[in-house]
């Protein structure tokens, strides 16, 4: 990371030719291990810079996305959304953040105080760990493990722990009910989420996130994996909406029945931690969908239409990956927000039936079909042209 910032040329040069993708000058893993091996201070600096970068990303994402969410919600409901603080209300999230900072942190009297305080920190830690593996641009990624997909599955499972802890330690029946719902829902939908990602792992033949992006040079998996990848993508979107506790799956905080769900008793900074984790997770799950199905930071290319591809490559290599990654992410985030303001909330039994009786069988069949396609090499689109 530090190396990447100091020497941007080595990164951007490799963006131009497709051969350079296969063998970049120095991979992230090499740079990371060099930093870690350079002694104690090198390792400390690497970890500190990585953490600061991710923490900054979490807070900025929280600020920007809560504003966008409120604006999108407003326009969906034929109102304007926040308009008073700053032009078109752009400073609204900042004002809200300051308000949250100055609010009193109230602790329930009979609850378990240590766990009550620890829960939001646990929740945001899981988000930070997850954000660390998102590849923003070639080389701009805090960790790039060989087993990236296993890491994603493992760390995304940690998020539910903060919610369970928070709900239980509040010593409040609404909180507990919300936490139980969240736990049941997130554990169930995690299965579908992982199965959907495994389809792309089968196609690309690797667990490493950066290699999954590189494997989409000839075309994004959503096209090249024909129907199978499209089904996997739909499963992923449904499961990640449930994993994010967003409408139509927002039962854990269904305000009409549970006041605020697991975060009913939280206020001030601790509440804002849950809040930040939620919005950062919205970004992370969109970013992962982009990485797995839409080619990450790769520009939009159509087969062998050289002219069209050349136009798509017009952007200077410094901003090209950022532009493509950012715009794909923004589109997906908008779709998820669209869901939230369009669909009604499910009932708990409908939610469970949807996962175990509908999504999971579809996911398994889809995985078997994907395995058959990969084994027989039955691609509609030739992989090497």
């Amino acid at each position, binding site marked *: 990371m530090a190396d990447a910032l100091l020497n941007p040329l080595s990164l951007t040069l490799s963006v131009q030719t497709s051969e350079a993708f296969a063998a970049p000058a120095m991979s992230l893993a090499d740079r990371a*291990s060099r930093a*870690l*091996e350079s*002694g*104690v201070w090198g*390792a400390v600096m690497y970890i500190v810079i990585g953490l600061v970068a991710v923490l900054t990303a979490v807070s900025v994402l929280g600020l920007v996305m809560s504003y966008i969410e409120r604006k999108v919600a407003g326009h969906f409901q034929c109102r304007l959304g926040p308009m008073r603080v700053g032009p078109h209300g752009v400073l609204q999230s900042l004002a809200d953040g300051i308000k949250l900072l100055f609010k009193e942190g109230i602790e329930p009297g*009979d609850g*378990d105080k*240590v*766990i009550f305080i*620890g829960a939001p920190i646990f929740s945001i830690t899981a988000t930070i760990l997850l954000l660390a593996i998102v590849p923003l641009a070639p080389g701009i990624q805090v960790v790039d*493990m*060989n*087993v990236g997909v*296993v*890491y994603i*599955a*493992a*760390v995304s*499972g*940690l998020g*539910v*722990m903060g919610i*369970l*802890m928070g709900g*239980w*330690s509040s010593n409040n029946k609404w909180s*507990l009910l919300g*936490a*139980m719902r969240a*736990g049941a829902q997130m*554990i169930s939908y*995690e299965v579908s989420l992982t199965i959907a990602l495994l389809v792309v792992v089968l196609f690309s033949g*690797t*667990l*490493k996130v950066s290699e999954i992006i590189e494997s989409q040079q000839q075309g994004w998996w959503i096209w090249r994996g024909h129907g199978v990848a499209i089904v996997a993508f739909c499963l992923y979107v449904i499961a990640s909406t449930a994993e994010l506790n967003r409408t139509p799956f927002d039962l854990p905080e269904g305000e009409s029945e549970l006041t605020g769900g697991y975060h009913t008793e939280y206020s001030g900074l601790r509440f804002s931690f849950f809040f930040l984790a939620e919005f950062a997770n919205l970004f992370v799950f969109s970013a992962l969908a982009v990485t797995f199905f839409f080619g990450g930071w790769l520009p939009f290319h159509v087969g062998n239409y050289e002219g069209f591809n050349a136009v798509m490559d017009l952007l200077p290599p410094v901003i090209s990956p950022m532009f493509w990654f950012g715009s794909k992410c923004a589109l997906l985030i908008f779709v998820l927000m669209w869901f939230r303001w369009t669909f009604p909330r499910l009932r708990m039994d409908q939610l469970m039936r949807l996962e175990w009786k509908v999504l999971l069988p579809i996911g398994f069949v889809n995985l078997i079909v994907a395995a058959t396609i990969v084994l027989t090499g039955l691609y509609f689109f030739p992989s090497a042209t």
Partner: protein
Amino acid sequence: MYDGTVATLFFYLFAVASIALALGVVLGRRLLRSAVCLIGVLGSSAGLILVLGFEFIAGIQVLVFIGGIVVLLLFAIMMTSEGHTFEQRPNAARRVMGGIVATAFFVVTLSVYWNTDFPLVSKEGLAVSHEDVHAIGRKLLSNERDGYIVPFEVISLLLLAALIGGIVIARKHDPEDT
């Protein structure tokens, strides 16, 4: 990948954390707090595995033990002991029994440690590359002499049987449900 001082530093960090948290699991009287400490213990051992360079095993450790088993524990605690934050203090007889069992287990573990040779694997032997996940997969599904297909299938069958058994037991208490 990790070398010298940094690896040593991380080793002691994780070792101290896992011992301290393990004490927290056993000595704490609040059930849920013990479960949270258990998350820390399992996380630290995942960290120890990571220091050795086995990323895949560390990932699976977090995925299965923290994401699966501890969540199950948390659910069990929430379902059964609502309102009872504290565990009851055990009476004298149970304390004595517990002491005997714990001492016996400690002696057995210690004797196993004394009588086992732990061969030092070279640094090269520990270097885990991309191929290792492939190697684990092949080994797990290979039906050759050193393959693990039979244990793998037997465990899968056992899990399926346990799953069906669990559903059957859970259904019995609900006569309204058809």
